[in-house]
């Protein structure tokens, strides 16, 4: 898994590529925790490049959400691949997360 961060209009975007699985999923939570500790309250996970997520990976995405929420921040998701969209649906996590297909729309939603 590779993670990079950037900022667009005050929104911290975390670009994730590769697999989010048992062995590496804590890296995503660490990246989000760093942002939250730096006072960032608008966080967007760009999951376009995520090819595979297991239950640990889903759990870490949930942990990221909870980490942001505890500091009164918001965490949203963008550009989900169809399989990840399916997994979020069957685990009812799609009811928890706001998800977007386009980044511009996602960034605007934090306003």
């Amino acid at each position, binding site marked *: 898994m590779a993670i990079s961060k950037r900022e667009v209009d005050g929104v911290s975007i975390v670009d994730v590529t590769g697999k989010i699985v048992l062995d590496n999923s804590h890296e995503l939570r660490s990246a989000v925790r760093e942002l939250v500790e730096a006072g960032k309250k608008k966080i967007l996970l760009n999951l376009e490049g995520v090819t595979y997520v297991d*239950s*640990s990976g889903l*759990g870490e995405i*949930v942990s990221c959400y909870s980490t942001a929420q505890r500091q009164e921040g918001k965490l949203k998701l963008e550009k989900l691949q169809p*399989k990840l969209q399916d*997994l979020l649906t069957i*685990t009812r996590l799609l009811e928890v997360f706001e998800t977007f297909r386009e980044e511009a729309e996602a960034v605007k939603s934090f306003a």
Partner: protein
Amino acid sequence: MDRIAFIDSVVRKVAIEMGFSEDDAQDIELAAHEAVVNAIRHGAPIGGDASDPPPLVDVRIAVEHELDVPVLIIEIRDRGAGFAPEAVPSPLHGEGLLRPTGRGLYLMRRLMDDVTYSAHPEGGTVVRLRKRRHLS
């Protein structure tokens, strides 16, 4: 993690060779992955410690036929003390929804046709995953 990735790839390859759709093959791969991860994480013999080698996990892949329909069977055996799947809280409701763990068993049940658990006569638990190749 390498041996888990290896098992993932073998399961996926078998599913594709059997004629499962790409979508179904991904589902089967993930279900098997979850079962293997659980076996490694929770299936160590009692009394061990962190310095012990990784627990032994057996994976068996078989193809059966039901009225000419191919059925993929994957059995994963651990050496642990056993567990009660019905005691694992649902990840779909209340506090379970935002828990960081606890979705593996549920995903297995949703992605496969059948999931059963049994005690191996020589110790440990056998998880049996089953999926019929649906006609496209």
